[in-house]
């Protein structure tokens, strides 16, 4: 295991990217920080800049306006960086499939600029906070 992966797994700092979600996954992500779930006790921290992030929590369908911004954010993260697709929309554009302003899903956009990106999927509409924690743990344990 390279030291980069080791340090990423030890205490993953995450940056939250909304690319056109209905706000539910986003609220559940913020919920992770509050007393009932409190992921900070595992060393998981929501940070304010993609340059500090080990992982991106991406929600939403990726709208036409958001796609270039998502690419730019991914470019700004230090690699290796795990991209978590949170929710049905991020995984496969969900109920908004076929919308004229939808260019996603997330993995398609990320793979356009980095074919070897590490992408993990947490389905659900919205996924429960427990499911998100479980998804993060599973993804980190296979790295």
């Amino acid at each position: 295991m390279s030291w980069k992966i080791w340090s990423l797994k030890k205490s993953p700092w995450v940056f939250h990217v909304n690319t056109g979600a209905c706000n539910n996954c986003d609220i559940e992500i913020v919920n992770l920080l509050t007393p009932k779930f409190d992921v900070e006790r595992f060393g998981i921290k929501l940070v304010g800049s993609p340059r500090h992030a080990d992982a991106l929590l991406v929600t939403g369908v990726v709208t036409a306006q958001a796609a270039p911004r998502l690419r730019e954010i991914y470019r700004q993260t230090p690699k290796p960086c795990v991209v978590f697709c949170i929710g049905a929309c991020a995984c496969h554009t969900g109920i908004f499939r076929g919308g004229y302003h939808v260019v996603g899903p997330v993995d398609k956009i990320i793979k356009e600029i980095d074919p070897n990106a590490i992408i993990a999927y947490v389905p659900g509409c919205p996924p429960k906070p427990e499911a998100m924690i479980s998804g993060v743990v599973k993804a980190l344990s296979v790295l």
Partner: protein
Amino acid sequence: MNQEELNNKLAEIKDKLIGIEQKPNNRIYLLCEAENNYAVNKFLFEDVPLRFVIATGIDSDDCFEVLYHYAYDQTGCMVTVKAFIRDREKPAIESITPFLPGAGWIEREIHDILGIDFNNHPDMRRLILADDWPEGVYPLRKQCDGIKVAGWGGETSARPTVQSQSPARRTVPLSKPIVAVGPFHPLQEEMEFFQLTVDGEIVTDIDMRISYNHRGIEKISESLQFDQVPFLVSRVCGICSASHPLAYVQAVEELAGVKPPERALYVRTIVNELERIHSHMLWFGLAGHFIGYDTVFMWAWKYREPVLDLLEEITGNRNNYGNVKVGGCREDIPDELRARIIRDIDELEKKVDMLVKVVFDDPVIHARVKGVGILTREDAIRYAVTGPTARASGIDIDVRRDEPYALYGELDWNVITRPEGDVFAKVVVRLLEVLESIKIIRQAARKLPAGPITTEVKEIPPGESCGRVEAPRGETFHYIRSDGGNRPVRHKIRAPSYVNVPSFRASCIGEHIADVTITLAAVDPCYSCTERLAVVDRHNSVIHNYEALLKLSRERTAQIKKDFGLSGLKMEDL
């Protein structure tokens, strides 16, 4: 003015109309040609006066229609001006934004999605579509199939990134300092882009860019069947995921003439009020976070969890309930859950009482948010704001009382208003509304009658109708048009933030930068709603991220605390 006087008043502009249609449920449609549209709207807004709700653009077979919806809150009447634009080649109509700034966004949106020109609109830039959306492609026209747009097709790899100059961005002379906020920033979960022009510490202008969250729900809705749409519209916005489907379902029920059984009305009331509680608690926590009270954030969200658990017990999901369907509800409230609902909201009431006391007693909160971000009553009317934002500016409107739906007409509760219009008033209105919601749920849970929760719906006849629901942020409005088939031919959604957000122009200008954070947050903006529709921009002269703005806001609270000699005071001491 009662309904008869309103009808007489409306008859005064008869010579400008080509017809008046009276439809069930107190809906009046005024039909006119495009050239008379301005005069009719000006009469309705200024002389009657009615409250502007939203406009809808429709691509009919032989013409374009622009519908301006107004509400008359004293009698729960909806008045709709239906203007016909006969010229399909170069559709144009006179803009009403010069006297009604609240219509500014929707006219820009209709221009984006239908290609109708609004003459004399003061600010006709792109609003809802992406920066690089091809010119001349209008997604809501019927010949545009919406899946693949010609000449664009969602092929994105070759397109430029953030350096591209947005056609929607206002160009400001470089001599003026600009503070760019968004579209991604650490706290607000959604994307939005604010451009603040500042003079020293004072904000002199604000510009907003949305579109990041526009998913084209109205178009997708036209491809779904009537009974599938509630699941789509509950995903308009995660926090209003009970209000949007309910507004849609009420519109369809009005069209089909269906009356849901009584027990379904009780279930709808309880689920909607639980939603209001969790939304207001969420907002209160975030507001605390914005001004530097993280304890409030943690506590408010902790108290919110039992409400989400109740919703999960009832509907099967913590959010996105999808619990209403045309003619009733999908999931029932089991009888054994009633005791738990009452117990949990009793418990919550004590906590909310404590929070109310904190807000009323803490001198720092008073100094920090009183007199900040004032939205005057006049501006509130001009921008047509709704919900707690309007009620905090002294406008006494609430759909639950003005046009009672579900069970609200039969229960005992109050509409909370405050005259001040500042952030403090908005905090107080929301907190006191939580207490009212608790009252409503308690009564409904005690009285819950036995019986079925659904009734059979045979077919949806052709026609049009509207449904209104008081969502946590204000009035949610849905307009449906059916041609007798199994899908809506037009489905217009107006979420409350769509009219509340533009009011920033009235409330932020003249404020300190440090106060902008809380002022922006005070209307509880919801962009996924607004758009059913932060990378810091490099081409702006000053780069300033949201974290810095948040820091400024918190420093100001700390300074006030210091001035009061309270720097060591903790939440627990209060």
